[in-house]
């Protein structure tokens, strides 16, 4: 519905008077952005960039390698210079754009060297090299979610790639795998190093929490499979590194945030405990371990829901209650197994799912009414 229609409807419903409606309309007109114009200009820029890329790509083999390397290095140096000036003049988006471009150029530069000098190898080596060259400048100069998401995403990709390339049950392999597992907590620990740049920090923390909560919720499935003593022992070696980083993350969050205090334990410490219990302690796959696993899951998400309710964070509260509802639905299938797939079982499952959805909605509405 257009703003004018909404204002008319609100006015008709007696929510606002004519004067307020006129002031809102004037305010919106004054702050309106020429999105259509920007879209057309953006489309033009995209066409220009695609055209340039196509021309270069079509003649790629005819361009001497030296020229490719020189042009690439010049562009990288120009981007670095632009970052410098952007930061010095406090031009946030200019510096961010240049920083993102510099990070992208470093990656393409490494790929270009691989092509020219016919270097072969696993992708993680290229990503880890990129990380070593780019992470310092991104951490020092990143100011918005753009660079935060780029750094967090690439760190996850590089370390997961490195961990996936490990062969055998050696100490070094376990340490690398532990490093990949520790990345979400590492991202949560970064606020200890950075005082300002709120948006950048928020970006890192957002990625960390999404990966952490989804990862731990999925790892919770380990309760459905037996974990042998040997597997648990290997996992404890991996988790030793994770424990150190998780403690650093907890300390960093307590000192500088940005997570509010009620969420420190349920979102930083409890996921570690849940992960440890599910994967680093030997257990069978009988009803008792499964029930205990479900309790751990419910404990973690229940605590998060409670903390979110205290803080008035509606979205997080909704996600936590949703996670609990899904787990409850899975419990039904765990309890009744193949019986749940019969006609009557499916009817009951359908009713249960509708009931859970309605229950979730009711809890959420009560929360919205009572939220601080």
């Amino acid at each position, binding site marked *: 519905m257009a703003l004018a229609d909404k204002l008319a409807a609100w006015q008709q419903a007696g929510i606002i008077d004519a004067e307020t409606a006129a002031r809102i309309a004037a305010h919106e007109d004054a702050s309106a952005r020429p999105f259509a114009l920007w879209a057309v200009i953006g489309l033009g820029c995209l066409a220009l960039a695609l055209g340039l890329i196509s021309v270069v790509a079509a003649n*790629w*083999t005819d361009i001497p390698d030296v020229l490719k*390397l020189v042009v*690439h*290095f010049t562009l*990288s*140096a120009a981007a*670095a210079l632009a*970052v*410098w000036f952007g*930061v010095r003049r406090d031009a946030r988006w200019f510096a961010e754009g240049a920083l993102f471009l*510099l990070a992208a150029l*470093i990656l393409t*530069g*490494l790929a270009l*060297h691989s092509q*020219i*000098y*016919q*270097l*072969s*190898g696993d992708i993680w080596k290229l990503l880890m*090299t990129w990380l*070593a*060259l*780019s992470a*310092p*400048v991104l*951490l*020092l*100069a990143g100011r918005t979610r753009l660079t935060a998401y780029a750094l967090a995403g690439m760190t996850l990709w590089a370390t997961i790639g490195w961990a996936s390339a490990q062969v055998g049950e050696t100490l070094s392999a376990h340490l690398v795998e532990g490093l990949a597992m520790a990345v979400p907590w590492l991202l949560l620990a970064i606020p200890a190093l950075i005082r300002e740049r709120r948006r950048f920090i928020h970006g890192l923390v957002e990625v960390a929490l999404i990966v952490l909560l989804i990862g731990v919720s999925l790892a919770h499935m380990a309760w459905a499979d037996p974990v042998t003593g040997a597997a648990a022992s290997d996992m404890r070696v991996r988790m030793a590194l994770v424990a150190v980083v998780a403690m650093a993350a907890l300390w960093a969050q307590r000192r500088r945030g940005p997570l509010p205090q009620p969420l420190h334990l349920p979102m930083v410490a409890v996921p570690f405990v849940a992960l440890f219990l599910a994967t680093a302690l030997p257990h069978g796959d009988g009803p008792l371990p499964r029930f205990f696993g479900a309790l751990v899951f419910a404990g973690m998400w229940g605590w998060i829901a409670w903390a979110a309710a205290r803080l008035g964070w509606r979205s997080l509260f909704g996600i936590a209650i949703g996670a609990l509802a899904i787990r409850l639905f899975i419990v039904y299938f765990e309890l009744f197994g193949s019986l749940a797939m019969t006609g009557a079982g499916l009817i009951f499952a359908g009713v249960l799912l509708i009931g859970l959805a309605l229950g979730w909605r009711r809890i959420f509405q009560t929360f919205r009414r009572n939220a601080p």
Partner: protein
Amino acid sequence: MNRSLLIAALLLPLAGLAASVGIRESELSRAEQYVMPVTGFDPRDVLRGHYIRYRYDWQVSGDPLWCRDGACRICLAGDAPDGSRVEIRDLPSAPCPKEIDWQASGLTLYAVPATSGTADEAGQPARLDVSGIFYLSESDAPAMEQQMAETPMVMNVLLTSSGRLVNQSLIPSAPPSR
């Protein structure tokens, strides 16, 4: 923000890129040029662009089955630029002066066991199959594909001191007769 720290962080990727080029160029400047006979097959791929998959057509001495798990050394037996002969050594053995690091060269290695003959087909001795990919431009690909099918070909390569083979050009082994 600490000014000198930011300068250092900005210079780090530039120094890294420059060092990467410097190291490779220095490696190539000390590399030896070899000419290696190759056979080609399976040219071009719609997903990966235009390329020739080539196989080295070496005269091999030593037991190819030593390479079954990649646990062997492949040593060039001739002096540069003769890259037509290789010797296979098992591990552990002393490194050879002109060893090919097939993994770092992006090559694929198979030790194909001997096959016993049948009524229709003669048996084959064990052999070493080392293959790689040579990328081509779209315009060169059709001519190269035909040339590979009709003419014996050689790959001009550089062998670096670390044992990496760097392809230079794929050409006919002898100039075409007039």
